[in-house]
């Protein structure tokens, strides 16, 4: 009797949890699928399901020079910000990762703080400072601002990779007479490279997608892709944006698949 009751009780628990989990996974995945489907509509509106299917909005997208221009700017800024983040972030991660000193812990908190502070407030603050010292907004100020909000991803992933590095490997290398630089190049760097790449990838994606910092730190001539899209959506619902979203979704899926192969991205984000 009690065994039977427990089974029913267990079944009810597993059923409820599984159903909610599946619904939650559907909620997560559905929006991207909906956009992909709508982007192939033959109609003029975002009606779902579409009245018919065509590639017309992708053709339209290939002629949308404003979006091309904005995408090029976003790409250039993201590449510079990622490069700068990797150089500064990996060096800082090497310094703070194995140190128990208070200064190292404080620096770690400082470098991570852009992740929780409202980026819009930082964007405004940076704009105020640049205007105070007379530095006009330009692609340079954009790269600086983006680097501040992207470097935490590089630091965090590099620190995590360094934490898994066996110190005995470094000691053996030193005992065998290798210089520190040689050990770094031949032992440390190859072992932490996947971590650095994963951090750089997330930094790149977050720079490419950044709106709050770009809003304040771009000049009128530098249109950024997410801002362009946002402003287009505020105005009217343009199906070209659906085609662009389709391209971005597919590019993201492809990049994540590559990164999963190269760096084991999913393991990194759950450890």
């Amino acid at each position, binding site marked *: 009797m009690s065994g039977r009751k427990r089974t029913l009780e267990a079944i009810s628990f597993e059923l409820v949890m599984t159903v909610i989990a599946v619904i939650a996974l559907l909620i997560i995945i559905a*929006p991207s699928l909906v956009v992909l489907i709508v982007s192939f509509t033959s109609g003029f509106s975002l009606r779902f399901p579409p009245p018919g299917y065509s590639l017309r909005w992708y053709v339209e997208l290939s002629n949308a020079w404003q979006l091309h221009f904005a995408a090029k700017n976003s790409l250039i800024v993201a590449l510079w910000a990622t490069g700068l983040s990797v150089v500064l972030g990996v060096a800082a991660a090497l310094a703070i990762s194995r140190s128990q000193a208070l200064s190292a812990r404080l620096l770690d908190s400082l470098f991570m703080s852009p992740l929780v502070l409202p980026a*819009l407030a930082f964007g405004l603050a940076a704009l105020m400072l640049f205007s105070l010292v007379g530095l006009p907004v330009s692609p340079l100020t954009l790269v600086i601002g983006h680097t501040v909000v992207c470097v935490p991803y590089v630091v965090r992933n590099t620190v995590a990779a360094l934490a898994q590095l066996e110190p005995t490997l470094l000691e053996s290398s030193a005992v065998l007479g290798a210089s520190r630089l040689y050990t770094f190049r031949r032992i440390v760097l190859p072992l932490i490279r996947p971590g650095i790449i994963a951090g750089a990838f997330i930094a790149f994606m977050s720079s490419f997608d950044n709106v709050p910092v770009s809003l304040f730190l771009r000049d009128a001539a530098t249109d950024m892709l997410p801002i362009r899209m946002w402003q287009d959506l505020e105005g009217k619902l343009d199906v070209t944006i659906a085609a662009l979203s389709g391209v971005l979704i597919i590019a993201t899926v492809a990049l994540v698949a590559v990164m999963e192969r190269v760096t084991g991205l999913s393991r990194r984000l759950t450890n």
Partner: protein
Amino acid sequence: MGAAPAARDVTSYGMGLAAPLALFFLVFFVAPLLQLFWLSLHNDTAGLHWGLGQYLHFLTDPFSLGVLGSTLLLGAEVTAVCLVLGFPIAWLYQRVGPKLQTVIILIVLLPLLTSVVVRTFAWIVILGRQGIINATLQSLGLIDTPLKLLYTQFGVVIALAQVQMPLMTLPLITALGRIDPNLDDASCSLGAGSWRTFFRIVLPLSLPGVIAGCTLTYAAAITAFITQSLIGGGQMLFMPMYLYQQASTLQNWPFAAAISIIFLLAVLAVVSVFTTLGRMSRGYGGA
């Protein structure tokens, strides 16, 4: 003198390597925030007269306080929805084989890396007058005229919950993975049912993950400017847009600075409350 530093040298690197980034942060992160704080302490736009006028204005203005309140409430609602939906995902993740685990992780991960504008745009398509929900309800004959889903609190909460779900789910998956599965079996074999085991064993032991997830989700939800403004529309105003309007449209920099500082403090307060809870729960979980 000789041996100890040499031994430390090979496994660690000098703090000097952190200097470039520390300097970069000092100049481009700390200095701007200090300047923001400095300007917020001025009563006039030119920054000549010191005073707490901007803060007094905010704290005595029912409209401003309303914006702050609705922003904090929005964060709480989104965090609650993410927790209720995210926890079962993490639970399911621990129950399935490695293949399905990778599938679940990638489903959770993809939105995190997809452009926020794209994800928000998807919700416009879903919640719109001709969107899926309205089209389905109408074709089923349940409603005659389209429901208003866009530009409502419900719409903002559900869209933000989807956008921020990965931030809740990933720490939960990590936390549940650290729980000894024997505890679950022990509890069940001692006669506690599945529900009781879940609420008495699994949930308390996963508290560090719950708190980490809640912190990230809350901070992200209240600052998620794009989703708030596109799904909320013009009628609903939250702190980030309020800040942006004051700074950009009205060029009232000292007031915008004060809004930023108040918003920063609110976020920091929430984060430190969560962090304190996290420290306490770790003690609990470890005991």
